[in-house]
C-alpha cells in the first residue's frame, strides 16, 4: 500500500484536523471525544442534525456539516461506527433547545452506539429522534435479520432534513420527513476493485481482471454476486434494474432524484458516463430525472466503483433539495 498517509492509525485524526483547519469559517473541531460542528452551533430554536459513522467514506459525514445540512458529524475509526460518547457530546454541543435528530445508517454498530447516546441524552432531558437509513437493495430485507444497509440515501436524508430544520420545522416533523426520504429511496453499488484499509494495507477483497462485485457494501462487504465485467452502460442498466425492481410497480412514475455516487476512485468522467446512461434508462422507464447529484460523496476509501440511488420526489422534497446548503461537499443557493 502506497498512499498519502503518515501513520495508518493517525489517518482519521489528521484528515479531520486538516479539513477543519482549511474551513475555519464553516467547521469547528472538538478533538476528544472527536466530533465536528458547524461553526455557528448551537443555533437557537432550530432542530439540530447529528450524524456520523465509520471513516473512509469521505466527504461523508464531516463534508456535510454546515448551514442547511448537518449540525455535527462524528467520525469513527475507519469503517467503525463512532462511539456513543462522541454522539452524545456532539448532540449536547449542537442542541439549540429544539431537540436533536440522529441520522443513522443501518449497521449494528452504528445503531447501537447512537441508541446508547440517545439513552444518555434522554436521561438529561435532551429530546432526540432517530432516522434509520436502510436503502441498499443488494441486501434482502427481512425482519429476521439486521435488514438492509444504509448507503446513498443517507446523503439525501441529511440534505433534505437539514433544509427543513433550517426552515424551522420541529423535531417530529424533521424526523418524519427523514423517514419519508429514506422510505422513498433505493440504492445499489458495484465495485471493480476494493478499497485498501489503512490498518491492514490490504484490499478488502480481490477481484479478477474481468470480474465485478455487484451489490457491494461501502465497507467492502460482499454483494449479491460476483459477475463478469461489462461496459459501463450495461452495468448501469443492471444496477438500475435492481433498484427499480425494488419499488412497487405503481411507484415507477413521475419525478426522481438520481444520485450517481463514485465509491472512491471513479473519475468524474466515469461518474458522468454512468449518469448519462442512467438518465436515459430512467427516461425509458417513464421516470423523469428532475434533480441529480453526480460525484464522489459517500466513498469506500479508494474503491473503484459507483452506486446508484433513486429517490422518488414530490414537490415538497424537490423544494427542500433546492434549498440553500453550505458545506464542504455540497454548496448551493443562499
Amino acid at each position: 500500500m502506497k498512499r498519502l498517509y503518515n501513520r495508518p492509525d493517525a489517518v482519521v485524526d489528521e484528515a479531520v484536523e486538516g479539513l477543519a483547519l482549511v474551513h475555519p469559517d464553516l467547521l469547528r473541531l472538538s478533538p476528544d471525544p472527536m466530533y465536528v460542528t458547524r461553526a455557528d452551533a448551537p443555533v437557537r430554536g432550530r432542530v439540530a442534525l447529528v450524524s456520523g459513522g465509520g471513516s473512509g467514506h469521505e466527504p461523508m459525514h464531516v463534508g456535510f456539516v454546515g448551514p442547511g445540512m448537518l449540525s455535527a458529524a462524528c467520525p469513527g475509526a475507519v469503517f467503525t461506527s463512532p462511539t456513543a460518547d462522541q454522539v452524545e457530546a456532539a448532540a449536547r454541543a449542537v442542541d439549540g433547545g429544539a431537540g436533536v435528530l440522529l441520522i443513522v445508517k443501518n449497521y449494528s454498530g452504528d445503531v447501537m452506539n447512537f441508541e446508547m447516546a440517545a439513552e444518555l441524552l434522554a436521561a438529561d432531558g435532551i429530546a432526540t429522534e432517530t432516522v434509520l437509513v436502510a436503502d441498499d437493495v443488494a441486501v434482502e430485507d427481512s425482519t429476521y435479520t439486521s435488514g438492509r444497509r444504509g448507503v446513498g440515501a443517507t446523503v439525501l436524508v441529511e440534505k433534505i432534513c437539514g433544509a427543513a430544520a433550517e426552515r424551522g420545522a420541529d423535531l417530529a416533523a424533521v424526523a418524519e420527513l427523514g423517514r419519508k426520504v429514506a422510505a422513498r429511496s433505493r440504492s445499489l453499488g458495484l465495485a471493480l476493485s476494493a478499497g485498501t484499509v489503512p490498518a491492514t494495507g490490504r484490499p478488502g477483497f480481490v477481484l479478477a481482471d474481468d470480474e465485478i462485485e455487484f451489490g457491494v457494501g461501502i465497507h467492502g462487504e460482499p454483494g449479491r454476486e460476483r459477475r463478469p465485467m461489462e461496459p459501463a452502460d450495461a452495468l448501469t442498466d443492471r444496477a438500475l434494474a435492481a433498484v427499480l425492481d425494488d419499488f412497487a410497480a405503481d411507484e415507477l412514475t413521475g419525478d426522481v432524484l438520481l444520485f450517481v455516487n463514485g465509491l472512491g476512485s471513479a473519475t468524474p468522467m466515469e461518474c458522468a458516463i454512468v449518469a448519462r446512461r442512467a438518465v436515459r434508462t430512467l427516461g425509458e422507464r417513464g421516470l423523469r430525472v428532475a434533480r441529480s447529484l453526480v460525484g464522489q460523496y459517500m466513498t469506500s476509501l479508494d474503491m473503484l466503483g459507483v452506486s446508484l440511488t433513486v429517490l422518488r420526489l414530490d414537490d415538497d422534497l424537490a423544494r427542500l433539495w433546492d434549498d440553500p446548503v453550505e458545506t464542504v461537499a455540497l454548496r448551493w443557493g443562499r
Partner: protein
Amino acid sequence: MSEELTGADVAAVFHRYAKTVAELKDLLTELDTAVGDGDHGTNLDRGMRAAVEALDAGTPGTPGAVFNLVGRRLVSTVGGASGALYGTAFLRAAGAAGDATGLDASRMAAVLRQATDGIAARGKCAAGDKTMYDVWSAATEAVESAAAGGTGLAAALSAGAVAAAETVRRMVPWQARRGRASYLGERSVGHRDPGAVSSQALFECLAAQAAA
C-alpha cells in the same frame, strides 16, 4: 484456586484479556474480514488497551467498580458493534455486582446473566442469530447451572469456558441473522463469528483467573 474474585482479581482478568486480545488481534481481524469489515481485532485491542491503562491509573476497588471502568472505557474508545455490546455487558455487570467486594459462584452467575441480557437487549438478538450472544448465553447458562448445583467458582467458570468453546464450534455451520455477517446471507455459513471467538477468550480468561 479462588472461590471468590475480588476487585483486584477482576482487574487481573481484564489484564489477561487485554493480553489475549492483542495476541488474537490478527485472527479476529481475519475472521471479520471474511464475514464483516475486518476491524474486530483492531477495535477490541484499542479498547482493551485503553481499559487496562485506566485500571492501572487508579486503585482497583470493588469488582463492580472494575467492570464499570472497563465498560465505560470500551464505550468511549471502541465504537462499532463490539464497543456497544461489550460496553453494555460490562456496565450491566457492574450494576449487578453492586458494592460487593467479592464475587462467588452464584454472584458471578447473576453478574454474567445481567451482562448477557444486556447484550440481547442492546443487540436485539436471540440465540441462534450467530453472534457473540450465543457464546455469552451458553457460557452463562453453564455457570448458572454449576452454581445452582453448588459447584465452586473455579469449576463453574471452567464449565462456562468449556461451553463457550463448544458453542463457537457449533455455530460454524449456522447462517448469521444479526450484525454485518447477516448481509452475507448463506455466504456466512462455514465461518467462525469474530465476536463469538473474542467472547470465548473472555470466558477462558475468567476461568484461568479463578483457577490461578
